[in-house]
């Protein structure tokens, strides 16, 4: 082996070393740093005894779920409401703050003063509410709702669903909780009267709320990251028929959701900052094979550190059992302004209005639309099922990180030839060192 070739091998070795070391450095994430571990405490229907009696917390047809996540210096509150539109109100308060719910006022419609308060008031708040279901007739299979003729899209208010809480499949402890709420009936209003309809023969609309105080990946597709500041929401939309008559049901249905998102900050304090819909590209699709994108709704940062997010992967599943081959796309549309004055925005449907009151119009209030489907997927009718997961919480959305498996494989993969190269160079050098002496001895 000539010196040049040895040099080449040495250079290759150096290159491998460089790659492995940069990989090692980038792998130094701070997951070893243990942050304050928060404890969860849950109260169902807080303060309802005044109006509904002693056992009102066990009532499964009424759910106001208060999850407190206590840390060392502050307390996170996650207030889930399935009274009216499904809503999550998140607030950060001091440790001694208590939640007061005025049930009488809250259950009455259009009360402009806040009926849900924290005492002392919250340092930061954020909330979202699923206010409307869109059902569109996608005759031309264009998939995206903003390309379908508006006359073919009908919106159904989510406050008209009747939600049941299933306590037997829910659980909670200080580090881990899961609640399931299912709606099987919908109330239709005709002028003055109302009538309760079933959602199709197998129909249900299910919300599963999951929280974990440790970091790690969920074991449900699309394997989103847990953190103690966030909660994951699974939505299952199965055989939901909201039409009044058979003929009303569209032949090519596409499903969409409308969310209201509000941050407890007055517009005049925010200057020109608004919420933004962010699309982040990731290299790593280990946890969601084939999906290299994450979308999130991000809020402006208040008080230097307070911000919130709603994050999802643009993928949903058309089977009860989630599988990659059953997946279709999730489409997100630009954020729009919303206000309680606009009846279509349905702000009063949710407890966001109960918390912020009429003042909500001076806050950062926006609407996000999501829809589901891929071209030529057979529309919602093919399986009559959509499963979708998103996560929401305080602070920055969790970042996916490349798993150790990848690093191990690359380390070993580059390591083996590197080792062989080292051995080869050593072997050749040793041979060279020995040779001249032998030559001298033999007179060559």
């Amino acid at each position, binding site marked *: *082996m000539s010196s040049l*070739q040895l040099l*080449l*091998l040495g250079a*290759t070795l150096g290159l491998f070393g460089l790659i492995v070391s940069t990989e090692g450095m980038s792998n130094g994430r701070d997951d070893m740093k243990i942050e304050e571990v928060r404890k969860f405490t849950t109260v169902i229907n807080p303060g309802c005894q005044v109006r509904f009696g002693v056992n009102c917390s066990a009532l499964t047809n009424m759910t106001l779920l208060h999850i407190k996540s206590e840390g060392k210096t502050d307390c996170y509150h996650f207030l889930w409401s399935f009274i009216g539109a499904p809503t999550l109100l998140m607030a950060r308060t001091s440790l001694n703050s208590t939640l007061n719910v005025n049930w009488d006022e809250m259950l009455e419609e259009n009360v402009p003063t806040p009926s849900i308060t924290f005492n002392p008031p919250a340092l930061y708040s954020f909330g979202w509410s699923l206010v409307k279901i869109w059902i569109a007739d996608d005759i031309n299979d264009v998939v995206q709702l903003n390309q379908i003729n508006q006359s073919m899209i009908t919106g159904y208010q989510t406050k008209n669903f009747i939600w049941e809480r299933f306590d037997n499949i829910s659980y909670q402890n200080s580090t881990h909780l899961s609640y399931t709420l299912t709606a099987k009936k919908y109330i239709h209003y005709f002028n003055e009267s109302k009538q309760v309809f079933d959602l199709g023969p197998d129909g249900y609309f299910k919300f599963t709320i999951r929280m974990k105080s440790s970091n790690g990946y969920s074991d449900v597709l699309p394997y989103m990251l847990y953190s103690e500041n966030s909660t994951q929401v699974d939505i299952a939309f199965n055989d939901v028929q909201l039409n009044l008559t058979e003929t009303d049901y569209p032949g090519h249905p596409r499903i969409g959701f409308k969310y209201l998102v509000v941050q407890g900050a007055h517009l005049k304090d925010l200057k020109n900052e608004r919420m933004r819909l962010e699309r982040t*590209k990731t*290299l*790593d*699709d*280990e*946890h*969601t*094979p*084939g*999906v*290299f994108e994450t979308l999130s709704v991000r809020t402006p940062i208040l008080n230097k550190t307070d911000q919130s997010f709603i994050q999802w992967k643009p993928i949903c599943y058309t089977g009860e059992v989630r599988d*990659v*081959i059953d997946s279709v796309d999730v489409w997100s549309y630009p954020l729009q302004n919303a206000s309680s004055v606009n009846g279509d925005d349905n702000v009063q449907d949710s407890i966001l209005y109960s918390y912020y009151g009429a003042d909500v119009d001076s806050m950062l209030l926006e609407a996000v639309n999501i829809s589901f489907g891929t071209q*030529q*997927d057979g529309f919602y009718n093919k399986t009559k099922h959509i499963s979708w997961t998103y996560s929401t919480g305080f602070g920055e959305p969790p970042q996916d990180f*490349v798993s150790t*498996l*990848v690093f191990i*494989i*690359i380390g*070993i*993969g*580059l390591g*083996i*030839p590197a080792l*062989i*190269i080292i051995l*080869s160079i050593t*072997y*050749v050098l040793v*041979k060279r060192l020995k040779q001249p002496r032998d030559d001298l001895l033999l*007179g060559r």
Partner: protein
Amino acid sequence: MARILDDGGDTDVLTGGGSTDTRDYGESSVETRSGGQGGCWFSCCDPRSSLHRFIVLLFMCFLGFGSYFCYDNPGALQDNFMKDMDITTAQFTYLYSFYSWPNVVLCFVGGFLLDSVFGIRLGTVIFCIFLVIGQIVFALGGIFDMFWLMLLGRFIFGIGGESLAVAQNAYAVSWFKGKELNMVFGLQLSFARVGSTVNFNLMEPLYKWMNTSYKGHTCTGIVLMIAGATCILSLFCAAALAIFDFRAEKILKKQTLGSGEKIRLSDVRYFPVSFWLMCGSCVAYYVAIFPFIGLGKVFFIRKFDFTPEGANAVNSILYIVSAVASPLFGLLVDRTGRNVFYVFISILVTIGAHGILAFTFLNPYVGMCIMGLSYSMLASALWPMVALVIPEHQLGTAYGIMQAVQNFGLAVITSVAGEIVDTGGYLLLEVFFIAWLCLSLACTVLLWLHDSSHSAGLLNMSIDDRDRWEHDKIYLPLTTLPSDDYFTDL
């Protein structure tokens, strides 16, 4: 492509078998035209004239077109396949696996069948018939929505495809033995690449066009049936070549057989370690290329936001680059030798290309072009190396083994790759391929080392050094004079 002995360079040794009894219609002209048989006297009909042989060459090149065109049909339509047939990525990769399985065995048997059982003419036609039947069954599987039928079709197609490559090489040797053979092999290879490229760029628009009238699995089936037309073209070429060959044999009165390959499995125990290291290097390399192309379309669509047509175009870049670069690199290796060095460099560069595709969002054209160049370089340098360590009469067996191992590797690893995509995503798939390339690199370094210590670095010598070494090996022992011994005693 796995099956062609990819090199545009020194292929004299590829005539293999060293058999002097192959027909050579090019150079010998023992019989004059006074024989008076067989048709017209114009030069285009004279089997010895260049014009006639050029026409025959054209048929020879198109002989393999159908096979290469249809081989990558699944890859070009991956997203449509998966939607229409409702299959996972792992199931999709079976379409490639089932093509490779019969060829683990056929690489040995094919040459034998051509030599002793069917003869080249009939054998080629038979293999083409397998090709056509295979593609038709494959298409019917789509029309009737039976995935197992598709797999059966690919299996039958595989039986025909790989053996056809052997036949193509045999015809080439028979008609163009001598200086032209290199060029002919190179041309056949380039044609094969062009066939693959056309497949990638044609199938998606064809599918879209058919999709206006047919939907779902029926559309897929019909598109595959249309692709089968290229196989019928191959069959037509096989028939034409049989006629030309038969005629030439009668006119020139040559009575020989010979695919140029003699397979003797008992030779295997004499194969040197260098050969097995080459084998390892070869398999580990190719399993990081072809399964990647098979799964590349959806990867480019999802990660880089390409349209299906755009993704297919990126996939085909590797083949286009190879069509041009293979002959050039072949020339380079012919002139400079140093095969192991080139193999080492090309594997390294391929690792870099996969790294770019996996860990950056750089335009995938960059990664794929680099991969195409390094792939061509490896092919030009690796296959001729076999001839440097294996004696001529065993070359047939050696290449047969290498092809068989390669097909085995492809059959297994392609399915594994599909599973990886379903469970671990594309990043993990790329890392998997990089790991195999590292293994290939390890084999190459070991080969380099072994060769340095045992055969004075023959595999890495320049052409001049190599010639001198060969010369010395034969003549040096004869020139040692007995008187020299007296001097060393003193």
